[in-house]
């Protein structure tokens, strides 16, 4: 599928990195991309289940566009949230809904992670998507 421009660039960036350590380093750097969800707003309703760390996300729709607020106690998980933020934050809801986790596979990040972290990413993605679908 065709991705929004920023996401396409990100996929290409990751595809150009062969070294596992550098890929992880890049994910760490992307932790700063999230719109921070303050820890005092973390709750059961924002919790991403299946993550081995504390990870939280809240989705808002503002003027038909997606706003994603997130945070985690693990910088690596927050980096994955940063990737999801680049992928859908600010996108029109209709476009965001068409996204699948395939972009993360194309980036090669899922196979750089343990199965539990990789499942955590999918759970994060599913939680965001199910919220978007509820808005329909």
């Amino acid at each position: 599928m065709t991705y929004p421009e920023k996401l396409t660039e990100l996929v290409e960036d990751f595809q150009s990195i062969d070294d596992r350590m550098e890929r992880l380093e890049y994910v760490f750097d992307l932790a700063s991309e999230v719109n921070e969800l303050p820890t005092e707003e973390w709750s059961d309703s924002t919790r991403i289940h299946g993550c081995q760390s504390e990870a939280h996300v809240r989705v808002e729709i503002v003027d038909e566009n997606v706003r994603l607020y997130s945070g985690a106690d693990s910088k690596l998980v927050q980096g994955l949230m940063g990737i999801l933020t680049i992928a859908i934050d600010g996108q029109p809801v209709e476009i965001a809904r068409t996204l699948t986790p395939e972009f993360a596979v194309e980036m090669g990040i899922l196979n750089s992670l343990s199965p539990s972290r990789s499942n955590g990413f999918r759970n994060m993605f599913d939680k965001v998507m199910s919220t978007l679908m509820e808005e329909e």
Partner: protein
Amino acid sequence: MSTSWVIELAVQDDFPILQRQVNGHRLIYLDNAATTQKPSIVIDAMNDYYTKHNANVHRAVHTLAGEATDGYEACRDALKTWFNAERCILTSGTTEAINLAAHAWGHAQLKGRPIVLTEMEHHSDIVPWQMLAEAFGNELRYVPVKSDLTLDMEAFEASIEGAGLVCVVHTSNVLGVRNPIEDIIRIAHDHGAKVLLDAAQGAPHCQINMAELGADMMALSAHKMCGPTGIGCLLVNEETFQEMQPFMGGGDMIETVTLEGSTYQTNEHRFEAGTPRIAEAIGWNAALTYLGTLDLEQQHERLLEIARHVAQELRSMDMTVYGRHDDDDSSVVSFLHPTLHSEDFAHLLDARGVAVRTGHHCAQPLLNRLGISGTVRASFYIYNTMQDAEEFLMHVRDILERFA
């Protein structure tokens, strides 16, 4: 060349997996408290069994069945000798061994009496007793862990009155702390309680003499001492063995079966229903043979020296190390960085070929007591060298520089 270096190199050569590269780096395997690697002698023994001797055990009269039976039973005999135990029931591992103790002994013998556990237990030595307590209404009494990471022995003595069983971990899988088992057994027996030892972590690091200790039951796994996964045992003294009732029914454990009812074997087979783990038993026996060629006491001292060095270096990097590394403790180093998440640490180490464990290590009550949700755990075993430790520390320093 020092003697210990010669020992290290000789042992490393016996483990083919240590030759492999992981993510472009030499494998440094430091997840030994979870499972150990296997020497060629174990891999070859299991391959040889399936290549030349595979058959079901005990009943058939043909040659292969005889060879398989001999191989399987030789493991039991070797374990009895190694641990100086009267009875050895082969199970799938420590967890099944403790569940067997709960069902085969606990159901019939505890009769609602309290069970004393500790906060240091692995989940496999907590959950089976919680399930039993739920069914029979037993009170569970937990001995707290003190701030110096040892069991509160005063609390233990206060909790023993009226108890029917004490379940205690020989050596903690998180802290490496070796508990005062001798005192615990003496106090428990003085009060008429039996003792079950979870020796999953202790057995790989020291030669445990069950009869000398006076433990009533002892559970352990092969895979933590160079043997294959999928097999372990419950060692039992004769008195306790005679009190146990069959738990799982089926083939191999019976003497006769009629439509009206069945009678059961009187030896250990009584508790080994179904086709057992034959290749695994043969592999475990080979692992015992291998360990028997080493000076385990010397290995223990060598590994403890490595663990102490690593712990000291980690502390100098502002890490919190959860362990004391006393002379009898195991060579486990659990640690946490103030800001870098333990899972992140493990991912970054893995990218450099270093295998460590993270998370709660199946000991959530202990971590709750420590006020943390997980640690990074580096655990050393016979094939690990000081060079492994130095490379590990070098990677840790580099990770902290780049990511912390």
